[in-house]
């Protein structure tokens, strides 16, 4: 039986000191707003929620659903103020599964580029759960600092950092 269910997922900031990490794709504070994660920034549309469920019973199967977020969708699904994306239309009696939330591109204050991922394996049927808290991890995709200088981007390793 498939039942519509809403699972509150609270995303936590990556476990770095605040001064070591910052979103740069929106010139707004606070740093924790989901609108910065889900595509409110100019041109940023790649944030997504992936829900993967493993169905157990007399037969086994798996299903995966991906929500790609841009700003209008995000607003209707999540709301502007809260930090709670809703996962809908999954089987609440599933025994296991995984939820992943992947941000659009971020940078840390050491000039690394990357993204933040929140992942959690579900260890009990969703029907018995009301909320889920997930730690975020910052994944670096590009290190070093490319500075635009004299018509080109050059890699700078020894930038003076205060």
């Amino acid at each position, binding site marked *: 039986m498939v039942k519509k269910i809403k699972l509150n997922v609270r995303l936590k900031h990556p476990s770095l000191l605040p001064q070591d990490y910052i979103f740069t794709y929106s*010139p707004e504070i606070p740093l924790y707003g989901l609108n910065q994660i889900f595509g409110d920034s100019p041109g940023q549309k790649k944030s997504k929620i992936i829900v993967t469920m493993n169905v157990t019973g007399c037969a086994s199967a798996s299903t995966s659903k991906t929500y790609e977020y841009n700003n209008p969708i995000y607003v209707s699904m999540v709301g502007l103020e809260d930090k709670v994306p809703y996962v809908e239309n999954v089987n609440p009696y599933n025994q296991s599964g995984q939820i992943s939330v992947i941000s659009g591109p971020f940078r840390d204050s050491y000039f690394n580029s990357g993204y933040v991922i929140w992942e959690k394996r579900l260890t009990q049927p969703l029907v018995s759960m009301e909320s889920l808290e997930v730690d975020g991890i910052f994944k670096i995709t590009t290190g070093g600092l490319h500075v635009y200088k004299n018509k080109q981007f050059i890699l700078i390793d020894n930038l003076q950092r205060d």
Partner: protein
Amino acid sequence: MIFILCSIFLLSCENNQDDNINETNHKRNGVASSNEVHEELLFNGETNYSKALYNYPMIGYFSDKNNSLKEEILVVCDGSERNPLTKSSLTKSSSNIKVLINGKDIKNLTMATKANNHNVFSDLYGKEVSFTLSSVMTKGQNNEKTVSMYVPELVEITSPKIETEEELYPYCYYKDFVIQWKPDMKNENGLVVAVEWYGLFINGEKENKHVRNIDVLMEDDGEEILKNTLFNDIPEQALCYIILLRGNIENIDFEDSPYSIVGETHAVLPLILIRNLKE
């Protein structure tokens, strides 16, 4: 003297209340907490853009694009106020003047996007454009005035070239900054270039400061080394914006009132300023 030289582009950056303009301008203006703008003009002299100094009600159009990945949007002014019309203000417009641009009602042009209205943009940029003002209050009289002027091609920054989300907010070294754009050899007015900072740093810290430095580039030849002083008062690792603007403006009198007729285009490059490189 040229304090408001760049009011043309500032018009499209100010306090619009709805739709995409509001959304995108909120990005720039939303962080500005200081009412006082520390403004420095690096150019002395009279240019065509000086006509904007007179602070007359604007009639015309502007292209708004807040970074290279954003869609170009057209906004219009119908003379009812100095700021551009938004969708909501369009219905409240108190203008008694009917404005036609190339024979089309100006109100039908606002918020047109380049993707969906390519013909609109191609008719309004890189062309001789006619602006016709007619009085809608004077019954039985045909009071009409037409101004034609060349409005340059849409301006586009080609270097630093921003093509992906990951490239937004490039780190840029302030000395001898080379900017390139698509030139328009028919544009005799040059370009306005400005650097604006709303007080925000990459590390999230924020200063209650708003800096705007402005220069005029005389040649529309596609490349310029910006003056280092254009980045004055903007510190290391600041999130700031380069605005490149070109257009045309004529001041006229119509029914005993002055107006500025404007066709404008500007491009915005958000960046993180780097001052200190160990070399």
